[in-house]
């Protein structure tokens, strides 16, 4: 029991020092917060983003840091626990005085930290494709909005593959729900009949896909070219694709285009049976540019030879470089100044162009459609002719169609209603 007593006392001392640890921090460096889950269900995707941020910060420091100061990464683990995201965001901003935070993956984690960023007036870079319907002053969305991923992918299938019948399969949460709502409206506007659209939702981590895959096969046997638009979330994809492969659903018969499957997810799969299934992203590791080659080389040197790169990583690459540029331009890390100077900043992306921050805090990106190859990579088979600007408020949903976002003065509003001429969220 002696041992026990000592440990408990130790824990108590540790708790006492906790508040001191929050307060006492030196000021010579510029701190950057990294808010990605390192444990729990989302660690599978988010840990990589933490690593890429550490790499970007290290590289920036080698180049002399920002404003002549070194950058210091502050890493915390919100453990895939959404309220903990809010708590950790508070700790980063108020406790550690970070100048900007790079983080979040799921929509709910972003929603959870939004009020914190608003209240404490800090900056969040959010790197993942999401459902849109949001534009907040303190958040910069470097991932794709639905019009930068879903719509072009459907256009591709419709025009190039002649698809007439659609299965919209997704995990039952807000991103697939919204995306499918938008796609449904879009498809109907294009003349697709109600009975040619099948919508299916599954729970998180769904692992038994036998029934659904055979339903898809049956739906595809109605004599019209059929495709599956998959918004199935991370973990459930591996068993889904394994079942597709085993049941022999070939991409030449029923192609599956996914919005949440990237190089990282494919790394857990034998892709040989999946050749030809599609994904729509704004970046593929196979992009043939010098910037990308350099990035991949640096990443492999940093994280390991067998690691791959993916779209959200590029989003952080773009976001981080934008932040550096904006801070240099503003000459300070003061959030208000940086938020203002971020708009209009353009930095090279990894696919050979420039991405610019728009007044609605979304960025311009190319949209690429790629086919899965046997080596776990994607090969680009189609891309938009130019860059697509992210649209915060979808034009295909009745309530959000009249909304626009412009954070420049004098409008400075994330949800300006063009019909009523008012900025929403202020009350009447």
């Amino acid at each position, binding site marked *: 029991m002696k041992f026990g007593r000592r440990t408990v006392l130790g824990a108590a001392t540790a708790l006492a020092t906790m508040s001191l640890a929050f307060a006492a921090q030196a000021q010579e460096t510029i701190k950057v917060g990294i808010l990605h889950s390192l444990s729990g269900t989302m660690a599978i995707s988010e840990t990589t983003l933490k690593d890429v941020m550490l790499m970007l910060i290290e590289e920036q420091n080698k180049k002399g840091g920002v404003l002549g100061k070194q950058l210091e990464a502050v890493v915390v683990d919100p453990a895939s626990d959404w309220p903990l995201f809010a708590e950790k965001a508070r700790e980063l901003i108020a406790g550690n005085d970070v100048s900007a935070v790079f983080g979040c993956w799921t929509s709910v984690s972003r929603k959870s930290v939004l009020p914190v960023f608003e209240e404490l007036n800090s900056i969040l870079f959010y790197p993942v494709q999401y459902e849109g319907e949001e534009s907040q002053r303190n958040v910069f969305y470097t991932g794709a909005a639905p019009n930068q991923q879903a719509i072009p992918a459907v256009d591709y299938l419709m025009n190039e593959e002649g698809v007439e019948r659609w299965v919209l399969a997704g995990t039952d949460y807000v991103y697939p729900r919204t995306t499918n709502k938008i796609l449904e409206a879009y498809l109907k506007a294009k003349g697709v009949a109600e009975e040619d659209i099948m919508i299916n939702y599954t729970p998180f981590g769904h692992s038994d896909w036998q029934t659904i895959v055979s339903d898809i096969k049956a739906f595809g046997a109605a004599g019209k070219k059929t495709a599956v638009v998959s918004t199935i979330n991370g973990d459930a994809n591996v068993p889904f694709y394994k079942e597709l492969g085993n049941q022999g659903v070939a991409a030449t018969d029923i192609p599956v285009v996914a919005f949440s499957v990237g190089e990282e997810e494919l790394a*857990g799969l034998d892709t040989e049976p999946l050749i030809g299934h599609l994904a729509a992203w704004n970046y593929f590791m196979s992009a043939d540019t010098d910037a990308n080659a350099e990035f991949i080389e640096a990443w492999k040197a940093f994280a390991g030879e067998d690691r791959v790169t993916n779209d959200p990583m590029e989003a952080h690459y773009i976001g981080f470089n934008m932040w550096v540029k904006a801070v240099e331009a503003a000459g300070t890390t003061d959030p208000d100044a940086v938020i203002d100077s971020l708009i209009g900043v353009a930095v090279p992306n990894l696919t050979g162009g420039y991405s610019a921050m728009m007044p609605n805090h979304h960025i311009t990106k190319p949209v690429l459609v790629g086919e899965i190859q046997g080596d776990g990579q994607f090969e680009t088979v189609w891309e938009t002719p130019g860059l697509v600007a992210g649209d915060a408020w979808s034009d295909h949903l009745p309530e959000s169609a009249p909304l626009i976002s412009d954070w420049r003065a004098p409008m400075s509003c994330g949800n300006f209603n063009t019909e009523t001429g008012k900025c929403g969220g202020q009350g009447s």
Partner: protein
Amino acid sequence: MPLLRRLVLLTFAALALAFPATGARADAAEISAIVDRFATASKFPQVEAVIEALGAAGDPLAVPALRALEAGELQVAPDGRVVIERGDALLDPVTLEAAAPVEGRLKKVRTKNSIRRMIGDVISGLTLRAPEPAIRMTAAETIFASADAAQLDALEAALAEETDAGVKSRMEEARAAILLTASDDPAVQMAAIDIIADRGDQQALAVLATYANQASNADVQAAAREGVAEIESTLAMWQAGQNIWYGVSLGSVLFLAAIGLAITFGVMGVINMAHGEMVMLGAYTTFVVQETIRNSFPGAFEFSLLIALPLAFLVSGLVGLVMERGIIRHLYGRPLETLLATWGVSLILQQAVRTIFGPNNREVGNPDWMSGAFMIGEMSVTWSRLWIVVFALCVFGALLFAMNRTPLGLQMRAVTQNRRMASAMGIRTPWVDALTFALGSGIAGIAGVALSQIDNVSPNLGRTYIIDSFMVVVFGGVGNLWGTLVGGLTLGVVNKFLEPYAGAVLGKILILVFIILFIQRRPRGLFALKGRAVE
């Protein structure tokens, strides 16, 4: 050089004999010339044009090049030659002989789904008269699905000399599929509909339904509709069988996930929250075994699972043994506190795996004998699921044998029934406890080997199964292996019958509500223990 050329020509001659001519016939040089056009085909429409030209040439010599293109092996050298890159070797696309080495980087001829579809069609036209019946069969199937009128002549010619009855009927179906749309003679179309409707599978349904949507002749359309209805009703019958199969296979997965827990929790009474992590360790053992095989003994990949099974049993069993000796043995008599300690163990194991292997999914491949599917009538059965069902039954049988027919099993039962008496009879009860727990953990480990074939191999693997496992054990009746088997299968089948009506999410909720209600009716599960051991 001339000698070589002559040899090559001889080979061609031999090949030409093997594939009798079908109308237009080109020689090797001509095919080579067309294949070489891939070198300049940088855009998709250009690639398509070359494939079309190869199809028009009508010579099976083009098949290897087309297959290579389909597989992404067709490459263009910087000097403009087109070669096949297969492994480390470079081959000539037509002769398949070793090609001269290439300076600089090869550039792949790019394809996409629509081009692969086109290749499939062209190849099927060219291989309708291949010597192997299997290839002819595939060709006929492809033509049936595409119903490409351009292949009609080739098909007729092939049909005339086809000897294999199976292939012949497939070819007739393919011809019917083409005639259905290509012909405008109602009688021909009616006959075609009959042939297709007799085939009666999903592809036949697709062909008929397509036609029914666009038919010009009302009678023929009605016949097509009738055919569609006929096929649909047959398919509906098979669907019920299919659902049972899905249920059984889901049930066997649930059973496998739960059976280890039926021992650690059911027999020993330890609320083993780390059970899922034992399953996970088994899956990661499979990963390590496959990785070792890939790196060192690539030939043995087909046996990787067989090698992984005993290893997974040992790894998980050993971890279980350590857990029992280190922690759980201090907690007998306080079973609810085992929940706390094993929860702690599960956190540590999860994070340990995350630290060692990284948080990402790891790739565990299916050996060939576990890939793909076969048909029983119109019921599709995937090999991986079939083997998992068989495996689950084997595990169950082995476990029953171990519990009822071996000295260790006897001692286990003695200890769980009356510890003091067993001890008085000279049984080393602590040792039996440790072995029982190790057995349960080891079984969880081999379940992990099976689950690695159908699910993610990630640190979260265990968490996804732990709740289901507890439900199965409790539903079946704690402490009864038969209960776990019947419980797992029942839940699996019920789930699969609910899913089409309620959807996957609601189906799962209904199952949980069902379990809650069921426990009210039978508070000790399906196979309740009777007698004094209960209270």
